[in-house]
């Protein structure tokens, strides 16, 4: 925070509207909030131990020290690499990441040491440690992105490379044999040895960057109106191309990978970016109509997609609660048993919901922290989205604007799709819950997203470069 300009400097800079209030870096705020985040996570971690066995969890000190060291490292890197960045993003993400670790530990302990319950797919006894390693990798990528992308504009150079990378990553599991890519009927991952990678998590980011820079160059033509139908200005047919292509790719995804969630996500990302770039409402409508039409016909054409709708509409009918709607209704029962204040960490039975550690982790929080805790978690996500959108509003250059707005909206959409899915607001589609789900790809990708938002907010809040004033005082020339 050494570079805060004084009002004297500003005056010397020849700006008539000075003295102006220069934005502060606010890294101290970030540090204080990080302490708060760590305290909250440590409290929750201790709570699990007390809830289960009435004592502090073994290994808590080591895990918490590792967590603190990782966050301190990230904070120091931000001080150096993005000193003007938004002060809340890192603490918000750290809180969610920490709660994810706590829940992983809680679920790992199910059935061990005389704790009640058993998991449909038990977590290994090192699951918590592995999650902390993923956190380390995630924060490592976070720092790397901040270090490599010093200016958002450098990303614009690789518009098509990012696009290609994104498409390849998305398409990879569909092209690979089902043996290494299929999980629960959807082909969305790559299994290599003991590791699984979900390439879609990274594809979203690559495509986001690619879309944003494509739109910056094409936004003028895209906003040209063509024919007017039903009071809506339709874009010119040749400009409609990119939407059609993305729509087609997202449908192909549906077909080959049985993954409505991801296709909804990047369809939403693209349409939102188009709208920000062109300000034409018609794009929103067209995108929405195309997606709904595609999803509807998919539900008619493919049995498993249609089944998702049936489960959503009639989860409690007939044998559904015991068969295909089992996971959904168990998650809902869990949340219902949690009620307003929850069962307390370690006090509920989240293990009754199959695979609660991944897509259904939100229901585990709902059960043990109650409606109150779940709403707090949703508000944490809401705040990240809000910081992203605020960045988008304040940043000047169009690329950063589209990228920040698009990424923030995509995060909101992802939360909506998965939390809405498990709470039966919308049909359930399996996508991960950022930061909270157990697993590495989602966590690392989420930290990269936070890094991008922080880089963009750093750009937005950075004071303008100091004018070069080496010529000395302006000389008065007398013209008589």
């Amino acid at each position, binding site marked *: 925070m050494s570079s805060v300009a004084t009002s004297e400097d500003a005056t010397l800079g020849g700006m008539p509207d000075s003295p102006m209030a220069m934005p502060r870096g606010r890294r101290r705020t970030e540090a204080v909030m990080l302490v708060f985040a760590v305290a909250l996570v440590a409290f929750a971690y201790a709570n699990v131990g007390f809830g289960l066995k009435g004592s502090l969890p073994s290994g808590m000190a080591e895990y918490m020290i590792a967590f603190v060291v990782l966050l301190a490292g990230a904070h120091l890197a931000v001080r150096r690499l993005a000193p003007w960045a938004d002060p809340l993003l890192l603490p918000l993400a750290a809180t969610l990441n920490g709660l994810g670790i706590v829940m992983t530990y809680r679920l790992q302990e199910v059935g061990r040491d005389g704790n*009640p*319950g058993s998991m449909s797919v038990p977590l290994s006894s090192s699951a918590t440690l592995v999650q902390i390693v993923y956190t380390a990798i995630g924060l490592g990528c976070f720092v790397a992105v901040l270090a490599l992308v010093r200016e958002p504009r450098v990303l614009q150079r690789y518009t098509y490379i990012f696009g290609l990378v994104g498409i390849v990553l998305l398409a990879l599991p569909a092209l690979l044999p089902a043996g290494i890519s299929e999980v629960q009927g959807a082909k969305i991952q790559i299994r290599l040895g003991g590791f699984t990678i979900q390439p879609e998590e990274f594809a979203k980011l690559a495509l986001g960057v690619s879309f944003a820079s494509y739109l910056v160059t094409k936004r003028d033509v895209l906003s040209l109106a063509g024919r007017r139908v039903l009071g809506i200005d339709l874009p010119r047919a040749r400009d409609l191309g990119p939407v059609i292509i993305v729509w087609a790719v997202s449908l192909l995804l549906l077909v080959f990978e049985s993954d409505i969630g991801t296709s909804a996500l990047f369809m939403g990302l693209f349409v*939102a970016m188009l*709208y*920000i*770039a*062109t*300000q034409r409402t018609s794009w929103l409508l067209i995108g929405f109509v195309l997606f709904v039409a595609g999803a509807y016909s998919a539900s008619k054409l493919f049995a498993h997609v249609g089944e998702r709708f049936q489960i959503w509409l009639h989860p*409690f009918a007939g044998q559904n*609660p*015991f068969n295909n709607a*089992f996971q959904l*209704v*168990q998650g*809902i*029962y*869990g*949340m*219902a*048993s*949690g*009620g*307003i204040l929850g069962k307390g960490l370690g006090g*509920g*039975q989240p293990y*009754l919901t199959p695979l609660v550690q991944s897509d259904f982790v939100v229901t585990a929080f*709902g059960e043990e922290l*109650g*409606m109150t805790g*779940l*709403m707090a978690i*949703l*508000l944490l*996500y*809401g705040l990240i*989205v*809000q910081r992203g*959108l605020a960045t*988008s*509003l304040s940043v000047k250059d*169009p690329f950063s*604007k*589209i990228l920040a*707005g698009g990424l*923030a*909206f995509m995060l*909101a*959409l992802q*939360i*909506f799709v998965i*939390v*809405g899915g498990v*709470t*039966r*607001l919308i049909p359930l589609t399996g996508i991960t819950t950022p930061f909270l789900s157990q697993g590495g790809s989602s966590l690392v990708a989420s930290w990269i997203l936070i890094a991008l938002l922080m880089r963009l907010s750093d750009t937005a809040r950075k004071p303008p470069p100091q004018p070069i004033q080496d010529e000395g005082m302006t000389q008065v020339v007398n013209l008589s």
Partner: protein
Amino acid sequence: MNRALRRISIAALVMFVLLLANVNYLQAFEAGSLTDKPGNSRAFAAQFQYQRGEITTADGKVIAESKNVGGVYKYQRVYPLGQEYAPATGYDALYSASGVESAENSYLTGNSSNLAVRNVIDMITNKPRKGATVQLTLDSNAQNAAWSALQSSGKAGAVVALNPQTGAILAIASYPSYDPNQLAVLDGNQLNANDKKLLTDPNQPLLNRATDATFPPGSTFKIVTSSAAFTQGNDNPNTVVDAPTSLQLPQTSTRLINNNGEQCGTMGNGKATIITAFTESCNTAFANIGMQLGSATLKSMAEKYGMNDPNLKIPSSVVQSNFPLEPAQSFTAMSAIGQKDDTVTPLQEAMFSATIANNGTLMKPYLVQQVQAADLSIVDSASPAALSQPVSPAAASEIKTMMLSVVSSPDGTAAAFKNAIPGVQIAGKTGTAQNGVNNSGLNDAVFTCFAANGNRSMAVGVIIQGGGYGAAAAAPIAVAVLKAYLENG
């Protein structure tokens, strides 16, 4: 671009508001109704997290309670007198329940809306939550007498005793019975094993014979036939009717005879008064009366006594006692003496006597006296209600005279019990019901009776499967129950 961004922000805000609203709906508003949805084992486990209410008898004996045993299921249900009270308490198992445990579940768990305010107060004052105590109408002396008598008889059967003035069930026993403790085990595998064993037991211990099984009423149905005769037929106990030693049933080759082919009464010439026919239980006399009245009249009277009613609850459902319309004269004759397709529950047997004991008014039977919240306040209590009035007080008095005669007259079928309870006059009616294909089965012994002592009165119905004569197998049990209740007044 900022205009579009603001709109995108509003869209994001709307999505979060929808999520928050939905979470509120699920966890605050719908949470209660979700606990009853299929497959919700969490709700079931939750029941065991706090103390379920007790079930007690009217005189305060605890017959079901929850004990703290620790573990996932913190509380273990215990039935101190398992088999004796099983027909009343039922069981509360991991995934199902029966009897009062099922019917009064919302009070026992404390989930009833009547207890909602108290639960909130308990939550605020940090008192451990406890379900309400359900007090039954059962009298522990009567119940114990009923169970002991059934057990020592060693034959399958059931006893129901009622307070005729209120309909309160004073005893309800069924033999062979089961131990509900075996179904209250918290280990799922153990539970399945125990359950399977009980289900496959040829003695059918899970069958509550008192209210869930029906048997032919035999001659006890003559109470109903007499009621119809005195009400619709303008007869009285001294009316002389045809009571031949043998009666050829119309349009059949079947000859209906009295017990052991004996003559009815001492008048000779095939005639007898109704009271004599009732006292000696002459089949031919009541077959004739029934044919004169017609099946529709008998059916209407039987229904006033509570038969053909599929909706009776005490609070558990009681199976229907049947009196089908039998227009063929020969069948009308058979059904008038409680044979053919007449079937009754032991509870229905007690209801016959209770009606007469209560001057012709049948009270609705009930098993739950009151419900007491954990703070000892009464949240629900029984209010006795009349179900119907099958006969006028005058007719009831005439039938009472006949039922007294069954026990007090030297020729009565239950004369052996004349002085069974010193100072107490017992009014009763025996039944010995043929059953099985072509009456090949052993006769069921049936006895229905009532008596009063001071301000205590009781009506009892007993059916013993394959017991033989009603007076021999069923009456001693009924008398033992009367004695236990009336002498402890």
